[in-house]
């Protein structure tokens, strides 16, 4: 037995044969180093995704002169943004932006941050919030729910922000929301998931700037069924995002008298999809796909090779190709297929004044990329939610009389927002009018259906807000503050 009579001697000290220990240590160090290096590389790969944009017609823009997104990015100081001089005796309104700078959300996160900074700049130029400038504090959550919760705590207890906002990925929202509720910090997410409206979170969590996936699917179903076919097959990623589409579109198809011919889940680790296409029934009229992630270009190319010139109608969510140039090699097969868009990528497809103003301030080209880099395609169907959320914070603070991060003022903010019904289209809401449902803490808006024509997205239909409504399944207003 390997004992030692010297009780002060470390039990880890071996008298000989340190080979196994050393090799274990070296292996572990190499693995940890590789993991860190992988993380660094991954961060840059993640950020290499592109950016987008649309155009509009509405209110008079109160501010002139936009900078390009790249120019704005170049002058950004990590962590904090412009801290404009506040009025005499007025402290700035502190907003905590939970950013996906690293991790799998970095491709989206970069444009979310640019949109946020552009909106903050505009709001500060037009007088701030209730006459007080915005001080923006940005923290990277690594697209990780554990870190997300830590960031919310940091906002609440260290930075002492008035509001936190901007989170996109569902698991980060769901992981962070309990802490926002416990710390009684209003938390306005831009996530698209149904988790807010489902009632799974708490009274401090809102999603007023972006419609949820259930309302999007509900809105487009009728047009898709009437125009593209009633016998549908759904191809979806085999995890929660895909299940939302499977369940909500599947229910809509049944309700509208259609038939689901097949449900084809694809595991998240899959890198080749050819074995799944033969599972599509031959009498399928409509192929509904919501693939996302790095394999999506392969998915499209292999789908094109499988079908050739004879294919069913195809409808997808632009989430698959956010940040991807529609003229990318391999996407030719998408010609003539249809996509949902939250806000049109191409200028001229939604030419309102508010949308034009928004694009100008963001520095978006007509094709929805950065004016400085045509390959830097935006996430225009989602990122407007950050812009609109910031203007909603401004509107509700000013209406509620919110001044300090006290329980009373925060309650006033929450109750005022819950009692707000409409946010009107304009430079504040370039995507269009929003109907806000206080019970679900969720906004509903118009949706766009676009067709790929000449490798561009051309809007062929706009849904009404009413198309996107569904019966609320919860009532946050009855929960304790």
């Amino acid at each position: 037995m390997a004992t030692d009579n010297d009780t002060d001697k470390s039990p880890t000290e071996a008298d000989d044969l340190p080979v196994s220990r050393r090799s274990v240590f070296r292996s572990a160090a190499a693995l940890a180093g590789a993991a860190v290096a992988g993380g660094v590389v991954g961060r840059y790969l993640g950020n290499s995704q592109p950016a987008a944009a649309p155009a509009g017609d509405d209110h008079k823009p109160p501010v002139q002169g936009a900078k390009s997104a790249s120019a704005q990015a170049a002058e950004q100081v990590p962590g904090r943004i412009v801290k404009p001089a506040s009025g005499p005796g007025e402290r700035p309104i502190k907003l905590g932006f939970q950013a996906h700078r690293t991790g799998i959300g970095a491709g989206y996160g970069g444009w979310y941050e640019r949109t946020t900074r552009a909106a903050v700049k505009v709001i500060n130029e037009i007088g701030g919030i209730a006459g007080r400038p915005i001080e923006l504090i940005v923290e990277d959550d690594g697209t990780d729910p554990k870190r997300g919760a830590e960031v919310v705590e940091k906002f609440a207890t260290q930075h002492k922000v008035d509001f936190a906002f901007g989170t996109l990925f569902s698991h980060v929202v769901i992981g962070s929301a309990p802490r926002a509720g416990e710390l009684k910090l209003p938390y306005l997410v831009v996530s698209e998931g149904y988790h807010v409206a489902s009632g799974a979170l708490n009274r401090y969590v809102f999603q007023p700037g972006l419609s949820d996936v259930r309302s999007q699917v509900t809105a487009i179903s009728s047009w898709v069924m009437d125009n593209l076919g009633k016998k549908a097959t759904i191809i979806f990623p085999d995890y929660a995002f895909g299940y939302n589409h499977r369940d909500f579109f599947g229910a809509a198809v049944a309700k509208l008298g259609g038939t689901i011919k097949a449900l084809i889940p694809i595991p998240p680790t899959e890198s080749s999809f050819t074995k799944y296409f033969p599972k599509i029934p031959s009498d399928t009229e409509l192929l509904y796909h919501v693939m996302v992630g790095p394999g999506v270009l392969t998915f499209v190319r292999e789908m094109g090779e499988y079908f050739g010139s004879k294919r069913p109608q195809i409808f997808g969510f632009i989430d698959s190709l956010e940040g991807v140039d529609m003229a990318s090699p391999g996407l030719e097969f998408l010609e003539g297929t249809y996509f949902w868009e939250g806000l049109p990528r191409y200028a001229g497809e939604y030419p309102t004044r508010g949308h034009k103003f928004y694009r100008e301030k963001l520095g978006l080209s007509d094709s929805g990329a950065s004016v400085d880099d045509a390959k830097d395609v935006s996430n225009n169907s989602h990122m407007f939610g950050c812009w609109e959320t910031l203007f909603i914070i401004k509107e509700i603070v000013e209406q509620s009389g919110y001044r300090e991060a006290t329980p009373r003022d925060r309650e006033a903010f929450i109750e005022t927002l819950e009692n707000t019904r409409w946010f009107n289209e304009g430079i504040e809401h370039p995507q269009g009018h929003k109907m806000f449902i206080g019970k679900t803490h969720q906004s509903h808006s118009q949706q766009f259906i676009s067709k790929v024509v000449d490798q561009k997205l051309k809007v062929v239909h706009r849904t009404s807000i009413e198309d996107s409504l569904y019966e609320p399944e919860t009532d946050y207003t009855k929960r304790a503050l």
Partner: protein
Amino acid sequence: MRQRPSGKILALHAGIIVVLLVAQLFLPPYHHTNLARIMVFASFAVGYNVLMGYTGLLSLGHAMFFAAGVYGAGLTVFHLHFGAIEAFGAGVLSGLALATAIGLVALRTTGVSFLIVTLMFAQAAFLTTLHFNQITGGDQGLVISSELASLRIGSFEFSFADPAVKYNAALLLFAVSFAVSMALVYSPVGRVLIAIRENEARTRMLGYNTYKYKLLSMIISGAISGAAGAMYALLFSYVGSTFASIQYSIFPLLWTLVGGVGTLMGPILGTGLMFYVVDVSSGLTHSHLIVVGIVLVVLVLWFPRGIVGTVRERWFPWLP
């Protein structure tokens, strides 16, 4: 033959617990919660260190044990409305049972093979959490705060939303993990584990059934990791498949390496240091992972055996 830690060793380690106990009275709110979280993850690292540091088995699959604890506690609260204590017990048992099952198979391999097998099992566990999305919440996860009742002990009621409850529950977990780890290291079983780490063939030649000892080490390691996962779910109200991902297998490895492999204090030091390196650097630069990488390189150069390991090697050889 049982060894006993000397008075100064006992005093040092008890002092760490006392410092952590008293620190809550002075820490600002942000660092107060941070330290609670650090203690939970340090317990995870303590569990990992039992296997890697004291038995010499390098696992790349410990996320599955942590996740077993997260799901064992979280799902019993969410679906079966367990109370906190019962849910915590379910989490510990989940980690223990999974470690037993995995250990029975994986310990038939050694070295790099063991590493690969644990990695593969962990990946299977991760995909399982996605596959049973209706139960686990899949990649999005579940919030359990609305289902978790306050903990009642006698006439006292403790809410997990209370920062003091979070802190002291985390401290209790860490103190117990720490004590178990120390007791193990000084026990006859612990001495055999160290002997296996140093030279398994020689230990076997001396008549020990090394397979059984390694299995016991894996079970203890899995149970402590499961306890940490269960505590995380209860204190922070979230369960999700992220905790079963490869990232959460690398974290305890990293924390243990930085703090000092095969040292009792290494896991808490490594966990705390890495937490604050990430926290501070991410507030200073977009490219904080580069800073983290540089810090790790510096640590490896100056503290090749981890911080406590190098301190022990150079100055305080009596440190366990």
